[in-house]
């Protein structure tokens, strides 16, 4: 494969994945509005298109057409840069996520992953940690008390919970012995649901910690203090309007999808079949290529539904409760999990 072919394939893959990701973000918003509606005993959006299915497109058009207001007192370069950082980081981490088995056509590189990186997990963590700047700079450059308070809360929360998040993944990495996401998934694929890290790997404590930390990392309820509207009006994006606000909004939902992808890859067996070989394997080449994609999407979708369910059910924490929970419960628990996993691996 020449370098030109490689570049062409990569551009193609990036374009397709970006479009799918953006559509996914748009329809996650609709999913949330629909599900929260049902939880609160109402219908959610129903007017635009059948079952309200065209609502995301209309919302997108609306945010494009709204007047873009830049307040007078802002620090312009950073005010303009912040939403780009936030959305950029939300879209980048999908690049190392493998979402299907190794399939290639006409001598292409593997189709269902943009880049197979040896330290894929660390790349995702690194991109997430850069994403904090989007929020921090937005709050600071807006020159608004509420924005600054929201940004401070948010960065403190992200930095605290990133620790628990990272530590909760160590157990999985210890079991797999690699940081490559593809190998981590392939090791869980032998016996269906029984060899998932969540069940067969006895990593449910890690999964619980990951779940809590992931809710906090994406600023979702019950940890959505950075945008607690009763205290902070809008939080870090108070001064943003039109498409810039929409970019923060999309970044939040993009991060939800990323977190769902990581949970699927590390704990739920990625694209592998949860039934293992119970029903046998199909010999049709198309089915063999597309079934993994189907399972991956189903797993991420269930994770997103869980997100929305929690949002519709639980009230918001108080800020000191949030910090106590992160530092005094989650982190020690994560360290205990690492110690227990290492002891088990050493004993075995």
């Amino acid at each position: 494969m020449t370098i030109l072919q490689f570049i062409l394939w990569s551009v193609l893959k990036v374009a397709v994945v970006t479009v799918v990701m953006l559509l996914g973000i748009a329809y996650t918003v609709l999913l949330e509005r629909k599900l929260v509606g049902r939880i609160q005993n109402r219908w959610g959006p129903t007017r635009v298109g059948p079952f309200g299915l065209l609502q995301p497109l209309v919302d997108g058009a609306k945010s494009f057409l709204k007047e873009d207001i830049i307040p007078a007192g802002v620090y312009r370069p950073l005010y303009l840069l912040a939403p780009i950082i936030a959305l950029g980081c939300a879209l980048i981490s999908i690049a190392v996520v493998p979402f299907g088995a190794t399939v290639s056509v006409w001598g292409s590189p593997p189709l269902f992953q943009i880049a197979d990186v040896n330290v894929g997990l660390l790349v995702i963590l690194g991109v997430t940690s850069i994403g904090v700047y989007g929020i921090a700079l937005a709050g600071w450059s807006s020159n608004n008390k509420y924005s600054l308070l929201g940004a401070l809360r948010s960065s403190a929360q992200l930095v605290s919970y990133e620790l628990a998040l990272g530590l909760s993944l160590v157990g999985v990495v210890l079991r797999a012995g690699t940081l490559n996401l593809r190998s981590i998934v392939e090791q869980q694929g032998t016996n269906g649901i029984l060899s998932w890290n969540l069940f067969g790997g006895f990593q449910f404590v890690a999964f619980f910690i990951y779940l809590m930390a992931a809710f906090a990392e994406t600023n979702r309820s019950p940890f959505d203090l950075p945008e607690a509207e009763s205290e902070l009006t809008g939080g870090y994006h108070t001064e943003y309007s039109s498409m810039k606000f929409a970019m923060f909004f999309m970044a939040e939902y993009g991060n939800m999808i990323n977190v769902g992808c990581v949970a699927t890859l590390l704990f739920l067996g990625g694209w592998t079949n949860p039934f293992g070989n119970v029903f046998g394997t199909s010999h049709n080449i198309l089915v063999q290529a597309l079934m993994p994609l189907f399972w991956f999407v189903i797993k991420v979708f269930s994770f997103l539904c869980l997100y929305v369910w929690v949002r519709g059910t639980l009230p918001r924490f108080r800020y000191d409760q949030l910090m106590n929970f992160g530092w005094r419960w989650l982190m020690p628990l994560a360290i205990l999990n690492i110690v227990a996993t290492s002891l088990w691996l050493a004993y075995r």
Partner: protein
Amino acid sequence: MHLILFIIFAGLCLAGAINLLLQTHPINSALSLIVVMTSLAVLYLLLGAEFLAAAQIIVYAGAIMVLFTFVVMLLNAGREERTMGSRAAWTIGFPAVTAILAVIATVILHAQGLGVARLGDGITSTEELSSVLFTKLLLPFEVTSVLILIAILGAVALARHSEVNEDSHGDAERTGK
């Protein structure tokens, strides 16, 4: 290919470093430092140290610099005034910096047993790195971690100390326990 990337990111790194010195606003300086850290990570990657590159981004660009920007935001530090510096700094400073850099460079270039890394070297796997770190270099590694632990304990002790003082003065606004 490696050379082109090296030139781009070394240039970016230097530009960031110079911008860091020239900017008058602390937050711009902090952001330039992030650019420097990130380009350094790419340079590590070009030398085949992928774990180091990822750790550089997570630890330095992601965690430490967030704390920097955090402090800048909290203190709300304003613009600095630009002065040309004292004459002594101009006459002694530049020769001194050159001399120190020259000494460091000679020492490093002549040191024995450091090993060589070239552009386009094969990627060192994390497994290899960790086996060296936890067998050959175990003692230095553990000493470093103890050092960091002491720093953490010191920070906690300082923070607790001020809290105890506040309590003894009977801070009425403290809620909770």
